[in-house]
């Protein structure tokens, strides 16, 4: 059974329905699976719970799914770049669960690794700790956080092969390797599919066991904050 699909729409074929929990890789607009997000929008699936560090910007990335009201709930660490998000949240149309960024990353890692919960110091004494189990280890207080899983994880990688092996480029890696582990089905979009054997096994970031479907697609790769220095 081939993992390779020719378009993002086909790569999500048969997977999308209402009420799914979706993990979507990326930090800001860096390393987001642009084409798979657009294909998810086109599928029309709604009432989605989306786990992603950020919520895109207006009209791009996850902002596209907000415009079409397909998202019921976001689980994120920072959502400050999106006016439509703010409007829907303040209007009570969108649920939001904030997680500290490290807690979010570790919850996803734990979910994918079969670890149902873990204790962390992050958030002790803050709103984040309310209602959570507290436990002392060696004189310090920690809170219990639970693992996160998803029905579908969509990630963006630099290079991949037909086995689903992935390597990521620079800081576009961010949450994607953990999300690939935590998705019941993980769909990867890559800049380039290379022949099996072309990727050095020493440098594979995500082994193919975590990736069920893969598609090569061209990304626009928008830059949020173009910052340059004098030559």
């Amino acid at each position, binding site marked *: 059974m081939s993992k390779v699909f020719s378009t993002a729409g086909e790569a999500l074929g048969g997977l999308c329905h209402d009420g799914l929990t979706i993990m979507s890789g990326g*930090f*800001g*607009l*860096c*390393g987001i699976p642009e084409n798979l997000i657009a294909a998810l929008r086109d599928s029309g699936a709604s009432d989605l719970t989306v786990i992603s*560090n950020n919520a895109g910007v207006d009209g791009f990335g996850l902002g596209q799914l907000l415009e079409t009201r397909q998202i019921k709930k976001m689980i*994120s*660490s*920072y*959502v*400050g*770049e999106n006016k439509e998000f*703010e409007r829907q*949240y*303040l209007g009570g149309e969108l649920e939001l669960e*904030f997680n*500290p*960024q*490290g*807690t*979010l*990353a*570790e919850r*996803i*890692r734990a979910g994918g690794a079969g670890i149902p919960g873990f204790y*962390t*110091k*992050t*958030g*002790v*004494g*803050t*709103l*984040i700790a309310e209602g959570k189990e507290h436990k002392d280890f060696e004189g310090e207080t920690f809170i219990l956080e639970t693992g996160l899983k998803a029905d579908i994880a969509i990630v963006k990688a*630099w290079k991949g092969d037909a086995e689903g092996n992935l390597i*990521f*480029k*620079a*800081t*576009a*890696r*961010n*949450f*994607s*390797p*953990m999300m690939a582990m935590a998705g019941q089905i993980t769909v990867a979009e890559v800049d380039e599919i290379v022949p099996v054997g072309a990727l050095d096994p020493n440098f594979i*970031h995500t082994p193919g066991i975590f990736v069920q479907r893969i598609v090569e697609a061209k990304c626009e*790769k*928008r*830059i*949020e*904050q*173009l*910052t*340059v*220095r*004098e*030559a």
Partner: protein
Amino acid sequence: MSWTRNEMAARAAQELEDGFYVNLGIGIPTLVANHIPDGMSVTLQSENGMLGMGPFPIAGEEDADLINAGKQTITTLPKSSFFDSATSFAMIRGGHIDLSILGAMEVAENGDIANWMIPGKMVKGMGGAMDLVAGVKRCIALFDHTNKRGESKFIKACTLPLTGQNCIDMVITDLGVFERDKAHNQFRLQELAPKVTLDEVKAKTEADVIFE
């Protein structure tokens, strides 16, 4: 004459030590990178997945796949490495980062910090701030001593929702430097900005601070 933003960053840079791994927050803390003393090896961590952050790129050499935690385009250095977010926060939460310099809306005399939300206003999220203050070995809060209404931001107890408890080791404001005296569990004035008087800083500090 109180310190400018750039002078505050320069003063914070004096807290760097050779070999340090450092995370700089968004805003004034980012400017600290411009004041790393010559010959000192300091490695900057960006929590979106990079150690050894280089300068901004020259126009035309920017790479959309290479950004810092403020989503600005950056460059690599020969020593740079990339990693995923869980590894990045293992550095932060596991106590491997030597120093975090971050902005603040309020810092309390007991070392509490609030810098992520104002109830009733749009909440953008805490990002990595709660992880940083809970996990990094030493945390310096860098902020203007008073708000736009002239009220102290260095106060007895935080009124805003906390980012972390009992976690700030040093306060640097436009008026001076305050080191937390662990033995007395209290901040102590260490240095005044040029031409700032003791009376002025006392008048603008609500926190119970040791001034002599």
